[in-house]
């Protein structure tokens, strides 16, 4: 055979062999693989920053740490209601300063290659977990950088006076002032209970940072392996105190691009995906293999008037500009179906949401008349600050600003659109440089106080988180009173009243609450959309055989 012939033969063998190989592989992939264990694959949107949730504030990180840990109290799955977690019950003293938690007995910590617990969970672990964040002289306070962002952000250092062990199964939290939302804070991610024994063992071994890299919790799943930017693997905790999870293995396949996540979901390479492209949702809803769950997110997007600057010091001007905005058109254009109009500063998923409040109607003629009555017959000039980034509560602030600009133009108000780099934007708007600013908020603990006091209270007007810089005493008094009251019914009444005042005074244009969509395959059962936007897999099961992962 000539040389040419040999080369041609080799090429032919490679082509035919390669093709056959791919073909046989395809057949294998399509055929259902019989597996003894139930593995749920979640195509997560990014890598966690780490596995100790007390350091971070990002939802992506919390999704990855949530399977591992428990808190003293938990949010009931799918709601913002607080239910017992590692604490079976709790009492609040009459003055609202002392919270006593009675702990669950027989709760086991996870074990891993370098650590096997010798005792069950007890009060030591609770004290250890909180003192690590609270006390600068705690041996672990500085380990792994030690910035307890959420703990600090929720003002816990000023709120917590002491965390005391009463006996092995009773812990007392002493506060500096009465604070009803404290209980909701205890269900947040920074309030996870870690193993004091594990920490001590790692400290003795001279590798304290391992306590954060190889997390040991009491949660429904334990961490098996993490490959950065690729996969996170968990296995069900067989000794979980609330019963073993229905699935045996949980895998996060990190997939950054939403179109690729969708492709993986369709191809059966994962069961659940977060954050779909709004444009894909309609197709997903009609796909016979998929189901799409949805719920309003725990957030609000708003436009705040700087009430310290003319003409926004006048209530009538603020009300008029509320009426000048065609909210429905904005939501249609900016959210593309993934948003609902907001009338209150808190989302409807939060208790005490006042549905009796009516929003300002879209009425440019009346707005013009009100402006004239307020002394601005020919309008005025102002600015609209538009965020440079996409946020859940506002996917396109530039576009939103343009629409508002056009609406206001119709009533004679000429607005220029202003934007800065995100960090700069936050800083300058906090300093009150704006006249009107687009921003929003995602709730932390499901308590109305977390929206109303943080965003609209007088204290927040001083430090700048209250972008309207609006300090209205009758409103603030209600919030302070609600903070000091432990009784749920009383608090609800106070917050409902506060929302009425808010609407009348109109320091904001409340724009929208985003809608969260979670697409998943049909064989996934028991999944509930979490109002906080987390993705939780305890309580989820798979019907029939489904073995993604090729």
């Amino acid at each position: 055979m000539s040389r040419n012939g040999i080369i041609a033969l080799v090429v032919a063998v490679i082509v035919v062999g390669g093709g056959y190989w791919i073909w046989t592989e395809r057949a294998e992939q399509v055929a259902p693989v019989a597996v003894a264990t139930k593995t749920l694959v979640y195509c997560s949107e990014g890598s966690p920053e780490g596995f100790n949730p007390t350091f971070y504030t990002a939802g992506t990180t919390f999704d990855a740490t949530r399977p591992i840990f428990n808190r003293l109290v938990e949010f009931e799955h799918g709601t913002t209601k607080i239910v017992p977690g590692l604490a079976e019950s709790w009492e609040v003293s009459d003055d609202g300063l002392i919270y006593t938690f009675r702990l669950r007995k027989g709760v086991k910590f996870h074990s891993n290659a370098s650590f096997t617990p010798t005792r069950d969970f007890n009060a030591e672990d609770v004290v250890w977990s909180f003192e690590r964040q609270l006390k600068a002289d705690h041996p672990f306070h500085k380990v792994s950088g030690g910035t307890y962002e959420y703990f600090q952000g929720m003002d816990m250092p000023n709120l917590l006076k002491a965390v005391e062990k009463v006996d092995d199964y009773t812990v007392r939290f002493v506060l500096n002032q009465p604070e009803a939302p404290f209980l909701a804070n205890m269900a947040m991610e920074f309030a996870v209970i870690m193993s004091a024994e594990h920490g001590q063992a790692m400290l003795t071994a001279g590798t304290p940072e391992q306590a954060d890299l190889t997390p040991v919790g009491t949660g429904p799943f334990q961490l098996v392996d993490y490959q950065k930017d690729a996969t996170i693997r968990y296995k069900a905790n067989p000794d979980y105190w609330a019963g073993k999870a229905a699935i045996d293995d949980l895998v996060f396949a990190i997939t950054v691009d939403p179109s690729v996540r969708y492709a993986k979901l369709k191809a059966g390479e994962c069961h659940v995906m977060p954050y779909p492209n709004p444009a894909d949702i309609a197709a997903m809803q009609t796909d016979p293999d998929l189901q799409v769950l949805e719920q309003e997110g725990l957030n609000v997007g708003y436009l705040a008037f700087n009430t310290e600057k003319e003409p926004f010091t006048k209530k009538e001007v603020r009300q008029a500009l509320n009426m000048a905005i065609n909210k429905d058109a904005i939501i249609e254009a900016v959210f593309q179906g993934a948003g609902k109009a907001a009338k209150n500063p808190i989302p409807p998923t939060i208790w005490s949401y006042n549905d009796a409040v009516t929003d300002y109607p879209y009425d440019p003629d009346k707005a013009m008349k009100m402006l004239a009555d307020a002394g601005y017959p020919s309008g005025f000039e102002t600015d609209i600050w538009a965020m440079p980034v996409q946020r859940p509560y506002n996917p396109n602030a530039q576009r939103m600003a343009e629409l508002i600009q056009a609406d206001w133009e119709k009533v004679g108000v000429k607005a220029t659109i202003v934007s800065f780099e995100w960090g700069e934007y936050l800083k300058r708007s906090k300093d009150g440089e704006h006249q009107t600013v687009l921003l929003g908020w995602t709730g932390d603990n499901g308590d109305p106080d977390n929206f109303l006091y943080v965003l609209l209270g007088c204290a927040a007007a001083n430090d700048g988180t209250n972008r309207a810089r609006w300090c209205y005493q009758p409103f603030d008094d209600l919030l302070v009173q609600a903070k000091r009251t432990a009784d749920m019914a009383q608090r609800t009444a106070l917050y409902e009243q506060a929302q009425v005042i808010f609407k009348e005074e109109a320091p904001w244009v409340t724009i929208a609450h985003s809608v969260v969509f979670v697409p998943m395959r049909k064989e996934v059962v028991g999944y509930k959309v979490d109002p906080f936007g987390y993705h939780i897999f305890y309580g989820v099961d798979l019907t029939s055989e489904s073995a993604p992962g090729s």
Partner: protein
Amino acid sequence: MLRFLLTKVSLLIPTFFGVTLLTFAMIRLIPGDPIELLVGERGIDPARHARLRAELGLDRPILEQYGIYIADVLQGDLGKSIVTRRPVLDEFLTLFPATIELSLCAILFALVIGLPVGILAGVRRGTVWDHSVMGVSLTGYSMPIFWWGLLLILLFSVNLQWTPVSGRISLVYFFEPVTGFMLIDSLLSGQPGAFKSTARHLILPALVLGTIPLAVIARMTRSAMLEVLGEDYIRTARAKGLPPLRVIGLHALRNALIPVVTVIGLQVGVLLGGAILTETIFSWPGIGKWLIDSIGRRDYPSLQGGILLVAMVVMTVNLIVDLLYGLINPRIRRAR
């Protein structure tokens, strides 16, 4: 040869300082403060903000920061990531094998296809072969990577189900990485089917990443071949009755390869740049995605360290390419 090598290596030193200075300064020119970005809408009180900046050393004069950074780098310490708190070098070494593996496969794909079609187009100049090769390669060169990647995924992974959508290996296989190169690790794991799964996961990303280098190589090979084929010695070789394959394969190709090798060397930079997009589409856990994340989070140490390391790799590869000329063409070696 030794002198040649020393000159080339000594050039690396000013380049190294240039890269560190440039990245250090440029990163700090991007507006935004890592701490402000970390806390977002929630905000942070000024005292705590100042304390955190001091902890990260961001409160010092910029020249002092640079001095400290360079002193650390020279001792092999690239600092710790602001976000994950892990040493930058560790993170880089965990992720870099994935990028190398993908880039090697991409360049291999580009060579295996690009060289022969380039030769074919050169030899059959002006024929339908030539026109189709040039047309297709121009299309490949102009293809936006993101769009091309998604298109292939939709066709081969979703519709035909021939290849997996993304990732490095099927989730069914699970083993601790030894070398970080999945092709090797999957063989070492001894799990049946693991290697095959890895290879299948490489097909689409390598194809996407290799498309632009393929087009460049094909076009470069063609024009180099055209030039060489017009030389007198080729006519002589043909005249003395050598078989055409021998004339093309030995006499022409060897001389045509020099510019092609230069281009391949330069493609390494292109590959690492393209890897950023390709890795994002195919959820490939390499350094491209890591660098993008670091920019978003203003993670100065990761970004500085990452860019420096990538620059070092590109410089090293180009040095090797320079040395390769000598091997291909002894005249260059002797001339120096």
